């Protein structure tokens, strides 16, 4: 399991870096899907199979495919690729990169010095459903009204 965790983590890291540095938008999106799938594996290893499934189905499956279709319909050609290449000049990212490196060093040193043993506890679909449809039922209902509001607003603003 530990092997799987580190493997998925490495895949997530590499694919996320590829998202930021790839100049072709469609390639970037495909890398993003891989990154989300890798995060889903991490969720699974940490004992949240339901969250892993949702991540794979909803994010990687539904939303990213929608993104991909929208991007393909926009038909971004060589011009945007050149634009992206122009934005990736070193003088634009070296400064922020160094700052983030400093933060990374801090984070790693904290993680190395503080030994916290994480014991994964599996939270299955059953436990989650008991909570969602028991004491938290009202939250589910309210979330549905929130989505309805978003739907109505989006319908009105986007029509024509």
């Amino acid at each position: 399991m530990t092997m799987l965790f580190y493997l998925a983590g490495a895949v997530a890291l590499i694919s996320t870096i590829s998202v930021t540095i790839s100049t072709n938008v469609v390639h970037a999106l495909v890398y993003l899907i891989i990154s989300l799938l890798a995060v889903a594996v991490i969720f699974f290893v940490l004992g949240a199979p339901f969250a892993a499934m949702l991540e794979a189905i909803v994010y990687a499956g539904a939303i990213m495919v929608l993104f991909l279709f929208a991007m393909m319909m926009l038909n971004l050609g060589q011009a945007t690729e050149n634009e992206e290449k122009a934005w990736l000049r070193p003088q634009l990212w070296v400064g922020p990169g160094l700052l983030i490196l400093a933060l990374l060093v801090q984070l790693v040193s904290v993680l190395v010095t503080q030994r916290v043993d994480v014991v994964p506890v599996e939270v299955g679909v059953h436990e989650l459903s008991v909570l969602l449809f028991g004491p938290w039922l009202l939250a589910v209902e309210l979330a549905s009204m929130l989505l309805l509001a978003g739907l109505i607003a989006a319908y009105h603003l986007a029509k024509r």
Partner: protein
Amino acid sequence: MTFDQMMLLLPLIIVTATPVITMLMVAVKRSHAVSCILTASGLLLALLSLLIVVRYPLQEVTPLLQVDNFNIFCTALILLAALAVTLFSYPYLCNLEDHQDEFYLLIAIATLGALVMVSSTHFITAFLGMETLSVCLYGMIAYPLHREATAQYPMEASIKYLVLSAVSSGFVLFGVALLYAQTGTLHFNDISVGITQGIADGPGSEYFVVASLLIITGFAFKLSLVPFHLWTPDVYEGAPLPATAFLATVGKVAMAALMMRFLSVSGVLDSPAIINVLTVIGVLSILGGNLLALLQANLKRLLSYSSIAHMGYLLIALMTIDSAITGDGSLGGEAVSFYLTAYVIMSLGAFGVMMVVSDSAHERDHIGHYQGLFWRDPWLAVIFTAMLLSLAGIPLTVGFIGKFYIFSVGVETAQWGPLAAMVIGSGIGLFYYLRIVYRMITPLDYDDPLPVAGIRDVISHGILLVLLVALVVLGVVPGGLMLLLESVVQSL
């Protein structure tokens, strides 16, 4: 959930059913009048259902919602304000070259969000309520964007509100996550317990102060307190008047009530660091709001800056409310509730007058539009003057009693800094409120005909009359409301 608990949620259930029924009617046949009447009657029905609610034992309904007297009072205030905005919207939206029905759906759902906010004792419901209110407001602010001539202003306002509201929600979430990491609970009640334990054996009190400050920052964004106020004037100016009025009344009441409950139940106010930060925010809001309002020629912008100052006054009282841990019977809660009531009456009145003389094609929001109003339409001018005098805090109006209440609370708790700011701020405020009154007296030398009050304006004028009566009655004999609020706040 028992039957008793279901009955306690009756207003929420009715307000949820309202947009659903209205939507079904829209699916059958679109009719502006039917949508407006359905929404208004739904809100009215929810208001009347409060009479049933008080017959049942008030209690916590699931861990997420709390129904008590304070909640019932705020629910009534929000429903009244939403009802007034709904009725004001009808004549305003009549000449919109677009479908009007969705606006009423959004009003109803936004009201639901506000009602959830005032009854939540749990971060899940507090956050869901805040987001429901905000998402509806994005739509309401950008509503007239299909009119080519004026499309860019509502769009700009809506995007500004979208981005900043999302950022403030992010602050709240980050703070909630930190609190959760420390206390392991999302319930306001348990936070105070968790905090005392956390200070004893956890990562220390600084951690908790940071978390609470992040949450308060998010709340301050929504209440548009200085230095988190930058979005306010642009959003007020760009939004159509009914959306502005809704944001300024329902939005502020819901947020202030949620903040009051959070501050009082969680025991956050026992930390001197938090009190210091709130004091600085309050003083800055009072001075900043009043100074920035001084030279505004646009009434929406002026009222937005004045709302910043008013929320600053409110913060003085908010700082003194009873903490759940060390309650000592301060007047703070009553002062906050009274001031919110007064603020709703005054802003609804001021925006109401603007809505009556405006329509969606032509908004009269410049100070020049009101020149000579005393001769052109004495009745509206009298109401507008009364509302402005009340906002300025002149005696015999409800605004004066509200300010007096806050002042006495401030003296009681010896907050001399904020009180000095309040005196200076009120002095500055007098100038820009009276400037509008002066412009209304100055005769107009050219002709700018106001829309003639037709049959469909009868309701709007009726609401304005009710607001005027409430303003004067509560300003002259506030005793009844004060007694009511005393019992309301005790339940908190």
